Structures are given as C-alpha cells and as structure tokens.
C-alpha cells in the first residue's frame, strides 16, 4: 500500500512515528499550518513556525524516506487575536515557496467577524498565488459552519475543485459533496471520524474527490489511521485499485493542482549524511 497523507501535523510527532509511517507505506505527506497548542502572541512565532514547515520538517521527513509538503495560513482560532492578524501580511512571501502546495488551514472556529475577514482574505490569496485551499470545518456547530464556509467559498470566486472541506462527518458530507469541493476526513481513535464509519461513507458516496487523513495533532491521534482505513477498505471488499485511489491518487490529484508537488521520489541529498543529530547512533535498517 502506498500512502499520501494529505493532512498530518508532523511537528507534533516523534521520529518513531516517521519510522512507523514509512514502514506502513507512507511516502508523502502534507502538513498544514495550524495552531501550536499554546496560543501565539507575536508574528515572529508564526514566521519561525512557517520556516520550520518549509525547512526543518521536510528535512526530518526525508531522513525516513518521506516527502514532506506544507500549506501555509493564519488558522481560524488565532485569527481572533489582533496581535496575530499582521501574519496575513507575511503570507505572500511564503505562498511562493516550492514546498507550499495550498493555502490552509483556513475556515471557521467560532464563526466571528474576525474569522470571516481572515477566511475571505486568504481565499483571495489562494486565487492570487494560484494555489488550492484547505478549509477546516469547525468542531462546534459544525453543520452551520460548513454551510457558511461553502457560501464564502462561492463568493470568493475560487473554483470549488481547488478547495477541500476537511474534518467532515455523516452530517456534513452531503452538503460538501453538493458544493463541488473535495471531501476531507480526519480519522481519529475516538473523535471526528473512525475508519469503519469512513468505509461506510465511501460505500455510500463513492471514491470521487475523497481524501482521508490521520491529522495526527496535539490531541489523542494516530499517524497510521490512513493505513487502518486502507485495511478497513480491503475488509469491506474494496480492491487494491480503490485503496490506491483514495490513499494515493486522490491526494496527488488534489495537491497536484498547485503544480508544485514533488515527483514522489524523496530527495537523496539530505539522506546521505547518516550521522546527523536527528538519527544519532547506529541505525538498524
């Protein structure tokens, strides 16, 4: 099974996770910019984080044979803090970088006016920089938040096939499907969606525009949920081509719209140096 995880926060994972992911078949990931657990209060905290997403984290991933891309944005939660808003002004610089394959995560958290403004401004940036957009649907009041997101996406003029609505569930999947956007599902051990519910959704709605991710963030999560979904698909009677489509070809097609996706081959320049501090000690291959 080859796996492209289209939404995974590797900054919050260890090197053990990278090794397990590689062993499970993960060869490419997209890490969306999001919050950091502890709220940030200055623009410099964001730029150092963004630099890490285009610098250190892809290097760390390459040590384990995984190609790492990212999306860049001011996330909805922190868009409510006026101290963070000036981040919007530094985004254009990052949206021109090779490894940046979308604007995201944008969207709603509490559906405030400040979130409305940041969301609309960043959809406009996606159009301007010719990038797709990754839209986070809110944890609270999700159905209303998803409706409002779809309305704002329509207003913005970005083509729906260049947008993914993420963290969908049984309640929001229909309206997302009707919007023409891509459909993202974050598979967690206990919360948003699990692999068996996911398989039921795939049976009902088909495999078109479907993206499955493990999110793997600061909360209880599992970076192998993509693998587990593939296994659940097999158990439910889907074939190898179906699994490959959902776990590899769909994310490749969606982010491929940026024109910046790597070929899937991991750069070897970074992996030649075996003694780096990330992988100190003798490695057992």
């Amino acid at each position, binding site marked *: 099974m080859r796996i492209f995880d289209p939404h995974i926060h590797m900054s919050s994972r260890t090197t053990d996770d990278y090794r397990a992911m590689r062993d499970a078949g993960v060869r490419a990931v997209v890490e969306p910019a999001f919050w950091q657990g502890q709220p940030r209060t200055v623009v410099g905290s964001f730029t150092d984080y963004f630099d890490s997403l*285009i*610098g*250190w984290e*892809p*290097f760390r991933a390459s040590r384990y044979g995984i190609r790492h891309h990212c999306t860049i944005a001011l996330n909805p939660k922190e868009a409510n803090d006026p101290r963070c808003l000036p981040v919007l002004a530094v985004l254009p*610089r990052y949206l*021109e*970088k*090779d*490894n940046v394959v979308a604007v995201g995560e944008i969207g709603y958290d509490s559906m405030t006016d400040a979130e409305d403004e940041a969301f609309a401004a960043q959809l406009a940036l996606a159009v301007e920089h010719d990038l797709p957009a990754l839209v986070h649907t809110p944890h609270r009041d999700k159905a209303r938040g998803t409706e409002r997101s779809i309305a704002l996406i329509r207003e913005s003029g970005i083509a729906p096939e260049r947008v993914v609505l993420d963290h969908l569930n049984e309640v929001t999947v229909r309206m997302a499907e009707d919007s023409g956007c891509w459909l993202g599902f974050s598979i967690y051990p206990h919360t948003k969606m699990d692999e068996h519910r996911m398989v039921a959704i795939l049976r009902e709605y088909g495999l078109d525009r479907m993206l499955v991710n493990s999110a793997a963030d600061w909360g209880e999560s599992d970076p192998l949920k993509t693998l587990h979904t593939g296994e659940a698909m097999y158990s439910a009677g889907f074939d190898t081509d179906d699994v490959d489509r959902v776990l590899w070809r769909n994310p490749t097609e969606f982010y491929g719209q940026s*024109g*910046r996706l790597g070929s899937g081959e991991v750069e070897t*320049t*970074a992996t030649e*140096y*075996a*003694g*780096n*501090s*990330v992988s100190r*000690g*003798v490695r057992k291959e």
Partner: protein
Amino acid sequence: MTLPRLREAIRHALTPAAAEWLAAAVAEVTTVARTIHTVFPRVGRRCGRDPLGAYDPQWTIDDGARVLLLAASPAVTEELSVLYRHGDVAEKRAILRGLPYLKIGGAGLPLITDALRGNDPRLVVAALGEYGASWLDDLSYRQGVLKCVFMGIPLREVSGLTHRADEELMRMMRSFAAERAAAGRPVPADLLTFVPDSHRQD
C-alpha cells in the same frame, strides 16, 4: 569558478523557455533591485533543479541561476540578508554558494554563521565553502569542521582544510575520536584519515 564560466554552464543547461525567463528576470533585477524578492523563490520551478554538471558536481541548475540573479543586482549587499532570512533551504543554499561571486567583502559572514548554527547538513556544508573558509575566525571554522564530522558530512566537501587545519583542530578531532572509542561507537572514517593516530574501535 568564475561568473563567465557559470553563465556559460547555465546557458547550456537551460531549455529555451527557461533561458528566456531567466534573461527577463536578470534584466528586471538589474533595473529594479527589489524585484529579486519576487523572482528568487520561483527559480527552481522555472529553471529546473537538475545537476549543473561539469561546472561543479555539487551544484544544481537553480543554484547557478540564483547566483546569476544575485550577481546582477545593483544593491546585493542590502538585499542579501533579507533574501536569506526569508529563503527556503534551496534559496539559502544558493546564497551561501554564491557569496564568493559577489563583491561584498565580509558582509556575508553573518549568513555563514547563521547556517552553521542550524542543523541542516545541506546548509552547514554550503557554509563551509570557499567564502566561509576565507572569512570565518579560527574558533568558528574549527567548530564548523568538527560539526561536519559529527553530522557525517564528508570532509572532502569542506573548503580550506589544507591551510586552515591547525593543531587545535587536530586536538579536537582526536578528542572526538577518543570519546567515540570510549563509547564503543565507530569513529568516522573521515576523521581517521585526518588524524590517523586515533584508534579505530569498530
């Protein structure tokens, strides 16, 4: 390694469309220096990232094209630190590699020390090129070389060793070898070539 030779190597490496894009970008930067901030991140996508070939086996096409842009800028000293601060790894590496081609004296030294503070071997080794070997003080140069040994970067890729390796650097290398030996861990082969009186323990 001179600008005319680099221009020649790039001319051979680029497709006609890429050559046209680069010529326009160079012309733009020559006229309005700050336009380099717009074109610099796009170089890899426009010109390609394949090896530059015989010019220098370590260099890629985007490295060379970026150095030509830097060399074209009438205000390169002012733009350099901003470009570096906001660059991704490919942009930073090209800047570090390009420093010897620019008429900036020691103004690039803060970029070299920044790269040596980091942990990305691609930048650490680029920082210990010709420019770093010329401008780093003894303490920083020795620490940089030892960091390469520690990270497993081949010392043949480090500039200046023949004339800058001093007795203190040898002592540091021997001490590093002794520490590895005491731990029962392999001593890097590179280091043994350098200080052959250290004992191999693997």
